[in-house]
């Protein structure tokens, strides 16, 4: 995917007036923002602001009551999550959704699933096209493993890995899908400084080398300020700020939200 520049300016994702409610609880109210191809967009806000819900709407896990999403030029009210995956959206989860019974290698290979086509019968015989396809994808996955420096734990069952490594494997699985849009839900949660630096480095590398657009939810302000191009701030399901990190940092409403000034 060489040749993509940062900030080529096109909007790859446009969120329009999205409203989402669970029973009586309004998770999101009238949220609109856009994401440009190749940028790193952060979504921040106090706990319960609706950030994860926003990601879930983008990748089709939650279906909003109102509003629409325009992705790669196509507008739709909602899509099923596997359709989103087929459209080039990949993500990681706040609580790690790895397949705990499988090895690191197998987990990342699942990320290649959508690219694998060979049918059941040939797979059973494991000859010719099935073998070649498997090896091809294995080679790609090894590239991802190299990139994330997790060679040593390839064959370890993921359930046994420490938290920080699990998060890295999860990133690997998302990368294996060669996504155009990568959604990261608190990728640094629970990590120490070193691990955070590593993760930042990986995220920036992905964005630089492959031009992947990244939307990430993050609580660590220094990370957000360092690596994002633009920031959206949510509070109680509403958007309260949208702009560059510096603009957002100086915004009074944002400061109030974080410091807990009473709302009417």
């Amino acid at each position, binding site marked *: 995917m060489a040749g993509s520049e940062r900030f080529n300016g096109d909007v790859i994702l446009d969120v329009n007036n999205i409203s989402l409610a669970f029973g009586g609880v309004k998770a999101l109210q009238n949220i609109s923002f856009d994401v440009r191809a190749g940028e790193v967009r952060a979504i921040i806000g106090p706990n319960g602001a609706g950030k994860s819900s926003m990601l879930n709407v983008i990748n089709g896990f939650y279906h909003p009551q109102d509003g629409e999403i325009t992705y790669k030029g196509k507008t739709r009210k909602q899509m099923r999550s596997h359709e989103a995956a087929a459209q080039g959206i990949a993500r990681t989860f706040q609580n790690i*959704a790895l397949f705990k019974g499988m090895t690191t290698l197998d987990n990342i290979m699942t990320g290649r699933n959508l690219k694998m086509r060979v049918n059941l019968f040939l797979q059973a015989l494991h000859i010719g096209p099935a073998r070649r396809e498997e090896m091809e994808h294995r080679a790609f996955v090894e590239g991802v493993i190299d990139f994330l420096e997790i060679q040593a734990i390839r064959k370890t069952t993921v359930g046994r890995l420490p938290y920080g490594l699990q998060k890295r494997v999860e990133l690997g699985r998302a990368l294996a899908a060669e996504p155009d849009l990568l959604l990261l839900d608190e990728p640094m949660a629970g990590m120490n400084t070193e691990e955070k630096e590593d993760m930042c480095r990986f995220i920036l590398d992905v964005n630089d080398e492959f031009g992947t657009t990244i939307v990430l939810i993050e609580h660590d302000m220094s990370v957000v300020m360092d690596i994002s191009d633009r920031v959206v701030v949510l509070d109680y399901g509403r958007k309260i700020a949208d702009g560059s990190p510096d603009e957002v940092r100086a915004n009074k409403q944002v400061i109030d939200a974080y410091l807990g000034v009473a709302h009417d």
Partner: protein
Amino acid sequence: MLYREAGQFKTSYAADQAIFPIVQDRWFVFALLLFAFLVVPFIADEYWLQAVIIPFLVFSMAAIGLNLLTGYAGQLSLGTGAFMAVGAYATYKLITAFPDLNVIVAFLIAGVIAAGVGFVFGVPSLRIKGFYLAVATLAAQFFLSWIFNKVPWFYNYSPSGTITMPPRTIFGVMVTGPEATAEVRYLVALTLVAVLALAAKNIVRGRIGRSWMAIRDMDIAAEIIGFRPMHTKLAAFAVSSFYCGVAGAMMLALWLGSAETEAFDINVSFQVLFMVIIGGLGSILGSFLGAAFITLVPVFLTNAPQLFGIAMATDTQKHLEVMIFGGLIVYILIVEPHGFARLWQIAKEKLRIWPFPH
């Protein structure tokens, strides 16, 4: 010292992903197969073949089928007996309707028919999980049993309701029917099991196997990755039922010779489920180990009293068997919930560093 991998470098991904990456394993399995094909027919007697070895092969096939569905794809099924019945009755109808049809081909077609039935009964799995799904498969078990009993077309209007496998040959050798020798039937069963087990192993280490395991481990996340739950689950039901169908066909044609619906009732479903749990969920090897265990235990329990010189009424013996069986299951689940396959793995780990303790 014996089981070292030192010096075995894999220089290609293909080598790394081979079924038996360690050379000693490969030799062991090769030797085992040679032994099974060339030596066993000559040294095993009729009783052992008919009462132990052939049923072991039949149930291994069924256990592989169930393991694919419950162990790899995580869909609990209590309908194994019914799918085996489909295979058996389909084989019977095919063979009696097309006398020139090759027996093995009949088995495979019967398997495909069973796969179709499995596909249909797998549809509820799209909406329900876990124990609820088990109830749905029970519906399949009871309903199919009833149909095979009530609709005379299935047993060619025979007054006894029993289906009997007519004699058939392959390359001139009698394979089914009263004339077929136990050795020949054994070899046919062995071939089928070896080939289909290899196919199963290939399937589970590829894309489809991974999609099953993903659905099993975290189906919501799996969907978000792009796996389509419907396709994955239905594929699991279909492939699993194929194996169970072939197992049922083997049961009729190569083991029992004739059968009624009782031969495929709920008890068989439970038996195969035990094999899979005790052998190890999510392991092809486990299917074999579980089948071996469950086939051998009753034989052992039946013959043990004589060995120890104790006389026991067959009634009491049967009850004791059931009791010991149940107790063993609870015990094994406590000691190693992942079954014999895990114990085997641990043994191999220890063997690799033998004679050092760790």
